[in-house]
């Protein structure tokens, strides 16, 4: 091995070790539920708990709604800011970073004050209302990721000229966003959706303070009461995450190529 290849390799190896060793340790630990034996008992235990499915299902559906609402809010916003109000972009960058700066705890207390059962808009007065509130909170939490993903997606296509080309052919604003902008930034949206999903699945603070049966509070509950199941759950979460990443890759291959030839 040549000297100039040694350092890069060392850094890659160290980086990989940093991520893989804890994962491996967790995995091995999750197999040790029975004494002196490697078994999948912890996994069996996790999968036989009906609360696992209930909370995961709940978080999954909240996640789907969060993604849909997020797309409906972010895509038109990014589109119009890029197209008509480019001077607003620095402001948008700043605003969409706020959820990273403001602790979720502050956010949820604000929500409870504003939308509590004794307020003018008592969202928390009903289960459906609380679910809606939770979805809105997640849309906000995911905003920094969704905004950046969509913004990056729109950077790669000339939305100005494509919009004009569609307009002059008689297309309406809705047709333009639906038929031209959305399909061309699908991969970007998917990666934003995936990040949103990852945030929603693991989120604890807001879900537990709004007292909803989400996956995050369930994970924390298991973590405090059991020994091996949390490790098994961590591995399961990783597999779900990797699965979602793989999906993005596969779908990305079907995405339209946007690079135009000029020869």
């Amino acid at each position, binding site marked *: 091995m040549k000297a100039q290849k040694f350092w890069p390799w060392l850094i890659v190896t160290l980086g990989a070790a940093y991520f893989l060793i804890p994962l491996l340790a967790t995995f091995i630990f999750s197999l040790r539920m029975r004494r002196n034996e490697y078994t999948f008992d912890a996994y069996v235990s996790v999968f036989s708990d009906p609360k696992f499915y209930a909370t995961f299902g709940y978080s999954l559906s909240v996640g789907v709604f969060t993604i849909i609402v997020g797309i409906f809010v972010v895509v038109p916003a990014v589109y119009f800011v890029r197209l008509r109000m480019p001077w607003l972009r620095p402001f948008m960058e700043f605003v969409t970073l706020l959820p990273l700066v403001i602790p979720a705890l502050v956010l949820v207390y604000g929500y409870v004050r504003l939308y509590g059962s004794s307020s003018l808009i008592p969202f928390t007065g009903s289960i459906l209302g609380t679910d809606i509130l939770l979805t809105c909170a997640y849309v906000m939490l995911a905003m920094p990721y969704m905004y950046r993903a969509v913004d990056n997606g729109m950077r790669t296509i000339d939305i100005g000229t*494509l919009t004009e080309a569609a307009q002059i052919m*008689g297309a309406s604003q809705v047709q333009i966003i639906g038929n031209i902008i959305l399909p061309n930034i699908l991969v970007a949206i998917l990666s934003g959706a995936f990040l949103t999903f990852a945030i929603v699945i693991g989120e604890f603070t807001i879900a537990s303070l709004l007292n909803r049966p989400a996956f995050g509070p369930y994970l924390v509950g298991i973590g405090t009461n059991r020994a091996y199941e949390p490790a098994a759950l961590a591995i399961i979460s990783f597999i779900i995450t990797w699965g979602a990443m793989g999906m993005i890759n596969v779908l990305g291959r079907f995405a339209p190529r946007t690079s*135009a030839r000029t020869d």
Partner: protein
Amino acid sequence: MPAFLEVQNLVKSFGTNTVVKGVNFAFAKGEFISLLGPSGCGKTTILRMIAGFERPTSGTIRVDGEDITHLKPNQRQLGMVFQAYALFPNMTVGENIAFGLKVAGMPAEQRRARVDEMLKLIGLLGFDKRYPYEMSGGQQQRVALARAIAPKPRLLLLDEPLSALDAKIRVSLREEIRAIQRDLGITTVFVTHDQEEAMSISDRIVVMNSGNIEQLGAAHDIYNRPATRFVATFVGQLNTLPAGVLAGTPGERAIRPELISLAPRPETDLTLTGTIADLHFLGSVQRLRVDIGGTLVNIDTFNNQTSPLQRGDTVTLHLAQKDLLTLGA
């Protein structure tokens, strides 16, 4: 013939910067018009106001008698081709061409027939399943043309559609565009800063300079009878002869290089003597630069010399009084 495209007192300002300063023109149905002028003179701005992408500061735009000044772009029934093709990357060639028909609500069956018709017109039959990135620039621009004309627009607007292409394709595609335009009889506004391009394909040319029309006319008018000094120097090559170079002509005169010859012709009635300062062999044409007492004059002659000319040779130039241009302001 009544005017089909009519622009009156069109003005456009960006802030305090007025880039189109009261432009008027009227064109008949089926005309091929070029807007020609140097970079930044306001050609694109005028085209974009016709398309509806820019709102005029004042003035009116009429198409077929209808005032469209305040209509949205998608209400104007116009077609446009952009410099950067602007094909929809997520759609096949066929879907691109069908897009305007689809938003107009044409049934799928008719749409398919129209797309085939368009593909045949641009010589790309069988390419409908391809994606834009699978095609060359020239092919993409032909698709963009087909997409623009498929919905039978009232006007076709082209903003430097050839400038991203290489020289050979540029020439063949401009002829193709002109042939298709003639075939369909579609009124066309073509923006270019290339005077050769404008002269070779236009019925009439609008020569612009810093937001004003300098001259409007057919190519031969503009070339042979330039209305202003700007037009004379911008369109084609020109020699300026300061006062005193030509005996008996007070004041400055100008003449095109190809109207000066080395041998007398029946119409020539003036002569000048000078030495060859430079000569370029351009194939069928030879370009000489002749020094006449300090004034350099370019001459284009056909390459039929029996004895080759050399630098430093003394030559006599023959020109006709009637070919001289007097440059105005």
